[in-house]
């Protein structure tokens, strides 16, 4: 049996062959480096953020465990239970209005009322270095407050001035420089106002049913040092308080909303990075094919000297892997370094804590994706290179090898793809989206391949005649060795990616700049007490006779059981998990609320006083597996309330009117302490006066301007949009690289054609005309594909991942496609221009 050369011999030959330089590998290196860099940098950044949140978990939470209640404080037994665990600090958070004591324009504020143990963990800092206790102390009959500097500007006040909050005048003593637990406080609409619990009591904002969140932070000391001990304590206390409506969080999940946001954003960005790498994979395949084309004679020579196909494969696979390792190493180094530099430079303005450092896990995943994508895209051209016959050296023109690589090579390609897909499933948090992504990517490849075959067959069969140059253009599309498949694949994927990102961008921008619906309310008023209902309506009517007021009772409650199954044990789709997460608004209604219609079941009869009934929003009901007649249990104010589902209801959320997922029959909740929520629709010119009047008469009522709330959400979306635009820039770079590589694959043939045509008397313009026709044909078919595939992908991202309303924007998609096709033409013609500039004699001699 003949021996094959050893790997060291193979590597030696590969190394010698690489002496020719890396010119042919520039696009290969660029595509791979950029793709791996994107995944590595985003993964590292995410790890730094997650690690920062984990490390600062105690400070963000304000202790080892936080026990939170809505609308009520802990009773004596509950407090005793908490005190047994360790040091307990009590904090109350709520929204309210504040105005300068000598002013009349109120602003929405986020109150945090604290005891003198606050903060249990971390450091609270004021701008002038004043101690929190002294800043909040009562001096000359006024409680002090520490505020965000934005409040000073908003109310046009300064340190030492008085602000009116509820019924109390409070003195502004300090500006907050650092609030250690801010990130754990959730979404904020207004500037922070820190005050003592006594000061909160003096404001009289805390009324029955007021939306106050009472938080008890516990420092476990040594008892809860390890995460396991912490978990055990949480589990034990959960068992004791399960029926009391407590929401318990440990330091390991100090800021779940932020963690979710980071995870979601990172998931999207990593998918964008992976897409860039896969599109880059096409560039890698093109580059390797072009490179191997230049090595045809070397391969044939080696074959004549006795090298087997397997040896040829090993030589060139070694080269590709050496270069892949170099590119991946550069990408990993940059991917590890850039986020560190970024967060170090911008640590002061980052809203979340980060732990800068080296995170091997995301880097390993990026490296694995890089190598797997390289293998998946290069084994095919390498498999073909092994079949280059030695006879090439005897014949000047040999038809390109069109046959498929042998079975083991196809198996290796499949294995690389399967391992990459498995890695994606293991690494990414949402298997459904990952499966959709992988399926979509595969489908795109297959469709583009079929599209190229279809175009070639169509042109071969049906397109004849025309000028000699158009005939030449169309023959170029279907001649042996045509670059059509690689150009269509590269262009199609690049275009589809650009259309996807453009449509995501436009949908998010639209959401950001969405004009508020015509009938949308100007205000939401919270915490209206039952005895304030009539005077409140009178004030509104007094300010604007045409104002429309909608009032509903408002409570907070948490779903604890669906049927007999505890909520924690339910498996529900990700898009409705929010319904089980913490407290939700509840109401009761005599009749079907406006902006909704019944889907199944019956609304309860007027004056119904029987056992508790509930109407459930239909999508949530389906997600929870609820149907008419089933039971659902809610914890309201520490009490369990089980109600039977009377009907399912579809809600038009877009109307921005008041609507709730759960609407109870009045008898179920009427007697629970609660406040009311109002929406007011009025003309903009009445808004300020209305706000002032309500605040002057009822300081406990909080008003949220819809526009302000939308602005706050908009800030969040703006950050997402910046991330999308970053992904767009990377994908654009990648697409240009890939396209340049694909066009280069036809360069040699074009040089030869141009030389022959010029020898026969064709001008550059004549030849360019034929090239324009050819590229326009590629542009047209890929544009149609990109419009359809890009729209489907964008819809999936917007609708499923971002959960935003979707609208197709033909002009944006069209402009993107046309722009990209023009880019193709320009790039293609630039390639042609180079080919046309070559002296025909030299080209013909070389061939």
């Amino acid at each position, binding site marked *: 049996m003949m021996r094959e050369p050893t790997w060291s*011999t193979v590597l030696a030959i590969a190394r010698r062959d690489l002496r020719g330089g890396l010119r042919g590998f520039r696009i290969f290196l660029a595509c791979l480096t950029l793709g791996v860099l994107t995944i590595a940098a985003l993964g590292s950044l995410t790890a730094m953020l997650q690690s920062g949140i984990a490390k600062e978990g105690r400070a963000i939470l304000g202790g080892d465990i936080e026990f939170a209640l809505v609308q009520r404080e802990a009773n004596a037994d509950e407090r005793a239970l908490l005190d047994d665990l360790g040091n307990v600090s009590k904090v109350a958070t709520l929204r309210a209005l504040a105005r300068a004591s000598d002013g009349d324009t109120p602003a929405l504020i986020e109150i945090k009322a604290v005891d003198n143990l606050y903060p249990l963990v971390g450091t609270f800092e004021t701008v002038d270095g004043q101690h929190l206790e002294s800043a909040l102390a009562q001096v000359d009959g006024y409680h002090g407050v520490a505020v965000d500097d934005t409040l000073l500007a908003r109310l046009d006040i300064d340190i030492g001035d008085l602000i009116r909050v509820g019924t109390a005048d409070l003195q502004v003593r300090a500006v907050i420089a650092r609030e250690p637990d801010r990130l754990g406080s959730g979404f904020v609409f207004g500037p922070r106002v820190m005050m003592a619990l006594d000061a909160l009591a003096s404001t009289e904002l805390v009324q029955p049913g007021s939306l106050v969140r009472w938080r008890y932070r516990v420092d476990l000391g040594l008892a809860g040092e390890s995460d396991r001990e912490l978990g055990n304590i949480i589990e034990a206390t959960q068992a004791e308080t399960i029926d009391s409506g407590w929401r318990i969080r440990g330091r390991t999940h100090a800021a779940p909303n932020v963690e979710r946001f980071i995870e979601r954003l990172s998931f999207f960005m990593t998918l964008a990075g992976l897409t860039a790498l896969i599109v880059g994979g096409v560039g890698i395949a093109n580059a390797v094919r072009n490179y191997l084309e230049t090595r045809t004679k070397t391969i044939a020579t080696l*074959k004549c000297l*006795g090298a087997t196909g397997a040896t040829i494969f090993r030589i060139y696979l070694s080269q590709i892997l050496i270069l892949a390792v170099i590119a991946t190493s550069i990408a990993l180094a940059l991917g590890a370094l850039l986020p560190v530099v970024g967060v170090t430079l911008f640590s002061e303005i980052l809203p979340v804590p980060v732990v800068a450092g080296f995170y091997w896990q995301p880097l390993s995943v990026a490296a694995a994706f890089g190598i797997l994508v390289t293998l998946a895209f290069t084994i095919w051209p390498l498999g073909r290179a092994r079949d280059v016959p030695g006879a090439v050296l005897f014949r000047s023109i040999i038809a390109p090898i069109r046959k498929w690589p042998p079975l083991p090579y196809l198996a290796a390609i499949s294995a690389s793809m399967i391992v990459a897909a498995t890695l994606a499933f293991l690494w990414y948090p949402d298997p459904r989206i990952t499966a959709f992504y992988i399926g979509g990517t595969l489908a795109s490849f297959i469709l583009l391949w079929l599209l190229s075959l279809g175009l070639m067959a169509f042109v071969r069969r049906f397109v004849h005649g025309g000028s000699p140059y158009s005939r030449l253009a169309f023959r170029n599309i279907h001649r042996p060795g045509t670059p059509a498949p690689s150009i269509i694949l590269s262009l199609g994927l690049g275009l589809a990616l650009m259309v996807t990102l453009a449509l995501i961008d436009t949908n998010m921008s639209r959401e950001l700049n969405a004009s508020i619906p015509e009938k949308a309310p100007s205000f939401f008023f919270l915490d209206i007490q039952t005895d304030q209902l009539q005077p409140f309506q009178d004030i509104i009517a007094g300010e604007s006779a045409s104002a429309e007021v909608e009032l509903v009772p408002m409570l907070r409650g948490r779903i604890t059981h669906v049927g007999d199954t505890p909520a924690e044990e339910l498996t529900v789709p990700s898009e409705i998990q929010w319904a089980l997460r913490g407290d939700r608004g509840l109401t009761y209604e005599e009749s079907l609320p406006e902006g909704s219609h019944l889907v199944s079941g019956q609304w309860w009869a007027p004056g119904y006083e029987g056992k508790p009934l509930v109407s459930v929003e239909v999508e949530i009901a389906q997600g929870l597996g609820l149907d008419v007649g089933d039971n659902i249990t809610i914890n309201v104010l520490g009490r369990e309330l089980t109600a039977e589902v009377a009907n399912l209801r579809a809600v038009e959320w877009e109307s921005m009117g008041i609507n709730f997922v759960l609407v109870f029959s009045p008898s179920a909740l009427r007697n629970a302490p609660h406040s009311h929520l109002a929406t007011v629709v009025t003309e903009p010119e009445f808004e300020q006066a209305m706000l002032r009047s309500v605040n002057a008469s009822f300081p406990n009522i909080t008003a949220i301007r819809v526009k302000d709330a939308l602005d706050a959400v908009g800030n969040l979306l703006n950050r997402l949009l910046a991330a999308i635009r970053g992904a767009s820039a990377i994908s654009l770079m990648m697409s240009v690289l890939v396209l340049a590589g694909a066009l280069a694959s036809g360069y040699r043939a074009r040089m030869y054609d141009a030389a022959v045509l010029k020898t026969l008397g064709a001008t550059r313009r004549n030849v360019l005309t034929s090239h324009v026709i050819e590229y326009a044909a590629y542009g047209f078919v890929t544009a149609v594909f990109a419009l359809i595939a890009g729209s489907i992908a964008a819809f999936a991202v917007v609708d499923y991942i971002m959960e935003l309303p979707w609208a197709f924007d033909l002009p944006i998609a069209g402009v993107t496609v046309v722009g990209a096709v023009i880019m193709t033409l320009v790039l293609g013609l630039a390639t042609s221009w180079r080919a046309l500039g070559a002296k025909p004699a030299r080209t013909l001699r070389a061939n």
Partner: protein
Amino acid sequence: MISLRDVHLTLHSNAGPVEILKGIDLDVAAGEAIGLVGPSGSGKSTLLMVAAGLEAVSSGVVHVAGRDLHTLDEDALAHFRREDVGIIFQSFHLIPTMTALENVAIPLELRSDNTAEKRAREELVRVGLEHRLDHFPGQLSGGEQQRVAIARALSAGARLILADEPTGNLDLENGALIMDLLFELQADRNATLVLVTHEPTLASRCDRVATLRDGRIESIGAPKRRRKATGKTLAEARAK
């Protein structure tokens, strides 16, 4: 060494099938030098490819160095070339990124020969290029490149040398020197030489000459007047 019986070869192109070899019968004995002459397109180079196992015949029997090439798969054919065949091309086909020494070592390295470098060096000394070992092909003259190619063809001890117009890219004097070298080495090693050429004078240095026309052997036999070597030594050639 070579035995061809009723060999036909038809290649398929877009213009239709083209019959290149039409019933070739040829025997070449071990140690013999045979020249193949004939006009362009007569099938000379194709016959060389068939003997090297680079082209599979459509019908007929091809025995080379005791092997029936028809029964060998691609890998076995590669091993056959590695063990028994040395090919010399008109355009040299040295690998441009490798030095003269590395080019000559390749056939030995492919055989996992641990003494590849040493033997390659000896071959290059034998063809008078000991001073050009580390030069790349681009740094060598045409004659030197062809000498490297000859050293490469013979380095692994090939029993069959297939030369396709080896002087086609050289001037007359260099061409003559190269042929002297080739015949000298062939005689030294008792190798079989198949020489494709347009030059009747070169062919006449072979033991026999076969004339091909339109895919058939038109005539075969000893040359009318056997030509001698130029008489120049390698040292003189090197000086040249």
